[in-house]
């Protein structure tokens, strides 16, 4: 009996959608449009955070060792002893610490100047460079300021800085962008709930008499509610199909096209396809939940008496 009841409910939900085709169609369209926007923002914000991670992976803090500092405390190539480096490694948030001698630094600098290299060769005895430690941070840690300060607090470190002002600003901008996008996404999801529940309210309003008659012939509230809720879920899921497919297909094309650095250099990493597939799944979940909530709210209004 339960199976035949469930069968009836499912049938009645589909019949309901079909017989109120235009209402269902407009509800589905509203869901599709909002979910498409939700998808757009989610994908954008995923990429921003992915870009940020790849930038951060390339950022290193350069900690300059005080020239007058006890030479036995810094990295020794023969004994592999590195008391100062170990202090850096012990700081929280630090992932790797790499020692670069002042000679290596000088060579790197000379190479950068290219043609005038010979001119600098004479300066080698009066090397103006310092020994440095290159420090990278753990994934997800973007608080370069705090770590730099902590490094400067260690005895034997003259100064610590990372990148140029440009990178500084880029990180800031990306940080701000992702919080703005989060805000947009939350707003859009609320809007989607509002739109869907409103449209379903309209489809239910059109069937007010149907609900009245159902109550009159002794249908329990649960019995009346069930097909409407199923309908809401079906509408939500149907509305998610187009945005989900579009998201996966279009994003796949973009990734494919960019494989050779077509849009943006390969130094920046795009959000991966598996993340995007999860977004598509999320769209279905949002559609179903929002559809369900929408019809639940709407149908309950007619079941109070």
């Amino acid at each position, binding site marked *: 009996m339960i199976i035949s009841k469930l069968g009836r409910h499912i049938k009645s939900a589909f019949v309901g959608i079909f017989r109120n085709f235009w209402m269902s169609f407009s509800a589905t369209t509203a869901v599709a449009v909002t979910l498409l926007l939700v998808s757009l923002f989610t994908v954008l914000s995923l990429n921003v955070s992915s870009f940020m991670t790849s930038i951060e992976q390339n950022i290193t803090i350069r900690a300059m060792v005080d020239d007058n500092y006890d030479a036995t405390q810094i990295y020794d190539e023969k004994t592999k002893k590195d008391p100062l480096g170990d202090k850096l490694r012990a700081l929280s948030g630090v992932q790797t610490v790499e020692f670069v001698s002042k000679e290596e630094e000088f060579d790197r600098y000379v190479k950068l100047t290219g043609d005038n290299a010979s001119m600098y060769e004479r300066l080698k005895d009066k090397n103006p460079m310092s020994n440095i430690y290159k420090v990278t941070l753990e994934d997800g840690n973007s608080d370069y300021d705090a770590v730099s300060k902590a490094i400067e607090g260690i005895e034997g470190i003259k100064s610590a800085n990372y990148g140029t002002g440009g990178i500084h600003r880029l990180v800031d901008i990306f940080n701000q962008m992702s919080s703005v996008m989060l805000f947009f996404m939350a707003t859009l999801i609320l809007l989607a709930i509002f739109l869907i529940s409103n449209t379903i309210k309209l489809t239910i309003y059109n069937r007010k008499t149907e609900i009245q008659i159902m*109550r009159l012939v*002794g249908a329990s509230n649960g019995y009346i509610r069930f097909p409407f809720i199923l309908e809401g879920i079906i509408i939500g899921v149907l509305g998610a199909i187009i945005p989900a497919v579009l998201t996966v297909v279009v994003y796949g094309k973009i990734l494919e096209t960019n494989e050779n650095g077509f849009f943006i250099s390969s130094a920046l990493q795009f959000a991966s396809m598996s993340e995007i597939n999860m977004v598509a799944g999320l769209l279905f979940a949002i559609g179903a939940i929002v559809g369900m909530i929408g019809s639940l709210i709407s149908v309950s209004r007619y079941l109070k008496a």
Partner: protein
Amino acid sequence: MIKFTNVTKMYRKGRVHALNNVSLFIGKGEFVYVIGPTGAGKSTFIKLLYREEKATSGTVEVNNIKVNKISNRKVPFYRRHIGVIFQDFKLLPKKTVYENIAFTLEVIGKHPSLIRKQVLNVLQLVGLEDKAKAFPHELSGGQQQRVAIARAIINDPAVVIADEPTGNLDPESSKEIMNLLEEISRRGTTIVMVTHDRQMVNTYKHRTITIESGYISHDTMGGGYNDNLQTW
């Protein structure tokens, strides 16, 4: 069967008295007319019976069930024991005649094969077995009302409440409906019928309860309209 004890119904927080301290008894299998001017409380009277409204004070009993004690959630289960017929039929326009009637049984979870048998039986009783697949808009008013009656009686209710069932029908169809209701009454079902149709009350004579300004002004056994008393 139906028992009102000191029933008062007020609307809008006591500002409108629809029924005032009404007491009455209707026995099993009785056929009763409820008449009276518009706004006198007839509608309230039958709404209390099918628990669309709750009495403000007093008790309404149907089949030994205290109707005003039924919680909102349990109303649907109570309604399975009564049949209601309206002036505007209240059929589901997008369901066929068969589906409209079968719906009542589906709702209470009856087995499909049983539903089929019962629906065909009741369609035969109201004389519409050849219209099972028609939609309501394809039928005449009288036919639609017969579908509504079929729907009301398919659960074999103890009480059938009819709110001006012939109000929208021509005299010929009205007669058919009345004959059908009398037939149902003869099978032991209590019938409470609200009507404005003077001729009907005088032709098919039954106990007649007159409600005026929220009070029962007359209750005549098999009397019909008493023209001396009718000022409206």
